[in-house]
């Protein structure tokens, strides 16, 4: 990497392993000793809690044991582990001191751990950072127990994912049930940060462990195994998703967040058709979502609706999807002849037009439809037949708050959207979209009606966004113009890019991360755009294919034989066709 880095490595030389191991041992010792002299950070410091503050560095220190046996990728794994162990330890020690009111409150264990983490880091940075030669994913030996073991791994991975999600959601956020004194306008509030420290430690531990697993090739192995058993994977995923409300002991907060994540993810998957498959940059995507939300709000029977009708939701979801799809066609038909950058500008404009129009259809500056800035509020609870989504339930001995109803509805919508995406992407239509993305002229010469297929992608994306929007209106119970700003479009796009363009798991992970982080790290709230910007830049630098790339895109970026660049124009852009 940098010159400073390599000269440091040369200076440390072969001692790096010994140093790292020594640091790790020290860190292990430190992490089992008491860290705080009071019980104030944000809860009592035990080994297991809060977050991963102590258990995290301990786990990451144990990774150093890899150095004793030369496993491929172990050097890079230990580098990552030592970095994150140091980050977590450092932050935690700082927070203990801060919330206690001085260094006196930090107990011996924390100091030992901090020293250990520093030595560990220094050793880790001295290790050889070069990527080992890539090898095909390993598989289990050919034994009779291999198949059940693979099933177990597949199902287990979804269970772990659910556990991580539940645990992460369960960590209290600074603002929950607290006065807003923690947020100082325009600056990171240390108080809020300390309160969020628990989640931050958990997040860092998660990233650290994920990096270690990636560098050892474990994630690649696991994803190869899950790919072998897609049915088991899907079934396990569905069970985990369905079971989630039962883990909440009647608490609706996490369910509400999960439902919102689901809505956000469904929209992201829809956008992925437009951007990831067909390669059309749509910067006003949230407007189609908004169209769906307004349609649902207006015919929900809300007292604030200017249309005093109530249409059953089963129809509304299709109505909202259809109206949004119609807008997609109206906008797409004249503009899809434009090349990438122009399309981006037009869709950006459309997004703004939608918001401004919704702001003005208040009966004063325009016809009375949307109530202007106030929007349509008091959207009543959904009812399907005699079943009201506003009712709490008690099932199998577990309290299920009413939010669970919306959560499950959202899961159904998400599954439908995901199925549509997956099936389309593997079909004749999906191949045509990718062909257009790759080389529009060659696609036309191969018999693809490029204008029609681009319009199809655009309209379909709009339709899915509209459907997601109708659900959202009922989840948040209000539709206002301010919910559909350019920022939201940008966030959806960021979710798609962050997770990995053209994949469903990528859009899910991207949406979850982008939704959850501002929700959980309240201290970042005023800075969230800055943080997203930084995160996206880092992703583009270190993992341009996204967190969970499609196999195709992964090769695209990490294959040295070709010079493809995701964000550059497709070949043949404006050049003469020879």
């Amino acid at each position: 990497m940098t010159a400073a880095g390599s000269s440091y490595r040369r200076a440390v030389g072969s001692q790096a392993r010994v140093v790292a191991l020594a640091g790790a041992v020290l860190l292990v010792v430190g992490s089992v000793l008491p860290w705080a002299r009071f019980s104030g950070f944000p809860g009592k410091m035990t080994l297991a809690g809060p977050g991963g503050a102590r258990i995290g560095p301990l786990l990451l220190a144990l990774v150093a044991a890899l150095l004793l046996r030369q496993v491929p990728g172990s050097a890079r794994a230990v580098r990552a582990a030592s970095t994150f162990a140091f980050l977590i330890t450092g932050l935690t020690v700082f927070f203990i001191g801060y919330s206690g009111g001085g260094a006196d409150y930090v107990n011996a264990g924390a100091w030992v751990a901090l020293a250990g983490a520093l030595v560990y880091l220094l050793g880790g940075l001295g290790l050889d950072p070069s990527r080992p030669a890539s090898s095909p994913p390993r598989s289990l030996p050919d034994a009779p127990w291999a198949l059940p073991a693979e099933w177990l791994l597949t199902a287990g991975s979804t269970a772990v994912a659910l556990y991580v999600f539940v645990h992460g959601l369960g960590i209290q956020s600074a603002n929950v049930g607290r006065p807003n004194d923690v947020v100082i306008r325009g600056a990171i509030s240390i108080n809020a940060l300390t309160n969020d420290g628990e989640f931050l430690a958990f997040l860092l531990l998660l990233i650290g462990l994920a990096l270690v697993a990636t560098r050892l090739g474990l994630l690649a192995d696991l994803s190869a195994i899950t790919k072998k058993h897609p049915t088991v994977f899907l079934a396990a995923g569905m069970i985990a998703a369905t079971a989630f409300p039962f883990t909440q002991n009647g608490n609706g907060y996490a369910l509400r967040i999960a439902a919102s994540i689901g809505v956000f993810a469904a929209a992201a998957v829809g956008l992925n058709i437009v951007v990831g498959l067909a390669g059309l940059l749509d910067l006003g995507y949230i407007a189609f979502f908004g169209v769906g939300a307004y349609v649902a709000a207006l015919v929900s029977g809300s007292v604030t609706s200017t249309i005093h009708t109530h249409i059953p939701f089963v129809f509304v979801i299709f109505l909202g999807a259809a109206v949004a799809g119609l807008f997609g066609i109206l906008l797409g038909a004249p503009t899809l002849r434009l090349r990438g950058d122009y399309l981006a500008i037009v869709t950006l404009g459309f997004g703004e037009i939608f918001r401004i129009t919704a702001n003005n259809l208040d009966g004063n500056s325009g016809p009375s439809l949307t109530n202007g800035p106030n929007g349509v509020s008091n959207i009543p609870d959904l009812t399907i037949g005699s079943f009201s989504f506003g009712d709490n339930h008690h099932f199998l001995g577990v309290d299920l708050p009413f939010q669970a109803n919306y959560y499950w509805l959202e899961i159904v919508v998400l599954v439908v959207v995901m199925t549509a995406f997956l099936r389309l992407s593997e079909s004749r239509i999906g191949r045509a979209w990718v062909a257009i993305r790759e080389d529009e002229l060659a696609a036309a010469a191969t018999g693809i009606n490029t204008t029609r297929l681009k319009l199809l992608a655009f309209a379909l994306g709009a339709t899915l966004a509209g459907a997601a929007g109708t659900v959202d209106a009922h989840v948040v119970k209000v539709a206002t113009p301010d919910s559909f700003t350019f920022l939201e479009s940008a966030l959806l796009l960021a979710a798609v890019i962050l997770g990995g363009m053209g994949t469903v798991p990528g859009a899910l992970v991207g949406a979850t991360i982008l939704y959850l982080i501002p929700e959980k790290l309240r201290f970042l709230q005023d800075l969230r755009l800055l943080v997203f910007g930084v995160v996206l830049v880092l992703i583009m630098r270190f993992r341009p294919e996204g967190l969970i790339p499609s196999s195709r895109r992964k090769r695209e970026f990490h294959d040295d034989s070709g010079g493809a660049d995701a964000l550059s124009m497709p070949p043949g852009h404006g050049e003469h066709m020879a």
Partner: protein
Amino acid sequence: MSVLEATSVTKRFGGLTAVKDVSLVVNEGEVVGLIGPNGAGKTTFFNCLTGMETPTAGSVLYKGSQLPGRPDLITKAGVARTFQNIRLFNNMTALENVMVGRHTRTKAGVLAAVGRGPRYHREERESEEKARELLTFVGLGRVGDELAKSLPYGDQRRLEIARALATEPGLLLLDEPTAGMNPNETAAARDLVRAVQGKGIAVVLIEHDMRFVFGLCDRVAVLVQGEKLLEGSPAEVQSDERVIAAYLGKPTEDTAGES
């Protein structure tokens, strides 16, 4: 019956007349060569035939009827092409590239793709089988799962031909099919063109490799500065001194058409 009947095709770019009054008839089962110095207008002529450029004047008939004005419709009608500077779908596999070629010959829409009934599965399976057959036909049977961009140059040219063949053309236009190939690959390309001819598909090919052209084509047309200088059997063209003059008399500065 003639497969292609281009009459007085003219293409002007502003003041430059890249193709001037060129007529060409291709009969069923024929392989016709199109030669000429750099910048003579050969590729532009192909572009006019395939709807990538709209001819300023002239008409193009395919099997007796006027060709539509859009590339995809022309391909659907039965005229397929390859490109001088290979234009594959780089980040798709070789198999997927060829399957894209099946687009006009298949029907499944959005609902069929999402619903996945038996008809859809049958069509998809047939597409894949045909694509694999074509890969084998062009000699790429083993590399179906490789990304197009990771294939060696010669294979990429062959893959482009397979993709064009997947559209089930009656006429195949090849723009410099051997450019950048070594002698072995060129020999294989010759066999491939013959095999295509054997399927009853007429071929027009642009080439700079004269041995390749004269050894393969039934007829050869010579384009110089946008005009058709002459047309005849390989023997006639080879011995015509105007052709020699056109090539030798052109200093190499005239390479503007290359891109």
